[in-house]
């Protein structure tokens, strides 16, 4: 996943909250709470980064935390909150 390009799914609304954000997928009606502002920033910045690794680097998160954030991203992927960007042909 680290070397792949990902982005927020188009049917997902990200609503800021004091503690982070609410993510709601209008298609599958899943509701996820992003509990840390760092995760929110990471998710928002995914689409602007070359790949997940670059997004993590840009986030300033300590490397020790990267595995947890990657797991979180995988869970978001499992509910289609984020999607892999299709490669250019």
């Amino acid at each position: 996943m680290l070397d792949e390009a990902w982005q927020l799914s188009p049917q997902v609304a990200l609503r800021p909250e004091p503690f982070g954000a609410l993510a709601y997928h209008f298609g599958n009606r899943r509701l996820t709470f992003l509990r840390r502002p760092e995760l929110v920033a990471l998710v928002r910045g995914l689409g602007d980064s070359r790949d997940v690794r670059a997004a993590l680097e840009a986030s300033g998160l300590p490397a020790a935390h990267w595995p947890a954030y990657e797991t979180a991203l995988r869970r978001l992927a499992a509910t289609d909150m984020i999607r892999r960007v299709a490669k250019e042909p």
Partner: protein
Amino acid sequence: MTLLEDAGLQDRQRPNSQGDRPMGGTLVEQFELGLDAPICLTWELTYACNLACAHCLSSSGRRDPRELSTRQCEAVIDELQRMQVFYVNIGGGEPTIRPDFWHLLQYAVDHQVGVKFSTNGVRITPERARFLASTDYVDVQVSLDGATAEVNDHIRGPGSYETASRALQNLADAGFRDAKISVVVTRHNVGQLDEFKALADEHGATLRLTRLRPSGRGADVWDDLHPLPEQQRVLFDWLTAHGENVLTGDSFFHLAGFGESLPGLNLCGAGRVVCLIDPIGDVYACPFAIHDEFHAGNILHDGGFQRVWQTSQLFQDLRAPQSSGACTSCAFYDSCRGGCMAAKFFTGLPMDGPDPECVQGYGESALAADRVVPAPSQDHSLPATTRNQPVMLQLTRRPDLAAPPVSACAEDPLAGYRPLRPH
């Protein structure tokens, strides 16, 4: 639906993020402090209804002449869009009997507000079902309170089972996927849980079981209809065993005292993450709390829905830490949170004491003590008996009769003779 833009989010005001709001803690603890916008809310579009269900939480029947106009409803939807309320549960009364219902449905969907509407099925014709099947972001919830006409119509009135069934069938035939069948669990239908599940499976629908509250007309029938303590246990066990694909709207969090919490936040969302907008624009803490006591404001008179949600005194009070009061010493308070405030209020119990259906039995003792059931602050019921009105007769036998009356044509000389019992 077009691409959702979050560019505008940075500008949205966040009053709750200022001041002394503590960060961290569990998600539930954060929610109890309230959010800047509801996550979802119930919007009753009309008090008019073609049915007269015995337990109606909104005492519906008659249209209120002050009902919001189409334009006013559109303005509500515009606000919900700005606030990013993800979805609204539209109900009533019977929302589909408003002439502009289908227009408002489309308007909501076109403005990034997902809709689930609750209906008794009366207007879900095959044509409407096909329209719904072709529309994204709309969910349909059909109300049913018995897996058989006998049990259902006892509460909802003659013909109501047939109407709901037909609606479900029309939806299934039209290819509408995953409609909801929403059931209020009562003393009389708690034995039909498997049948309800089968009904949902047959129609490709999802079953939803919810709690009966003594709200609206429910106050009049609650004593007779609410599940008995042993039935609550049956319900809890059934949900634990079979409830994987069954929704509950988190309405049984008061049963958390039985053991492992059921799925859901186990939190009273009223005024914190959910609320009600009623047909005349009044805002209440939740649809089970339609009473002056839980009235937060009015969208027309108090500057719009966002203003009411964010600044009403009632909601500030609900978002402050609540007292556990008489429940403080109970080991289960952490899981049940003292139960449902509407259930307590409408049975005349104190807010800081046990739920009337407290699984530890403290509610029963409280109910047996002196209490004053509050008078309703409003009633939209139709004044005269209508043909749809349920007649909740219980067929019983006179205790003094041992046998049917003796016919005048009886040939047996001992007919009707009852020997005296020895003392």
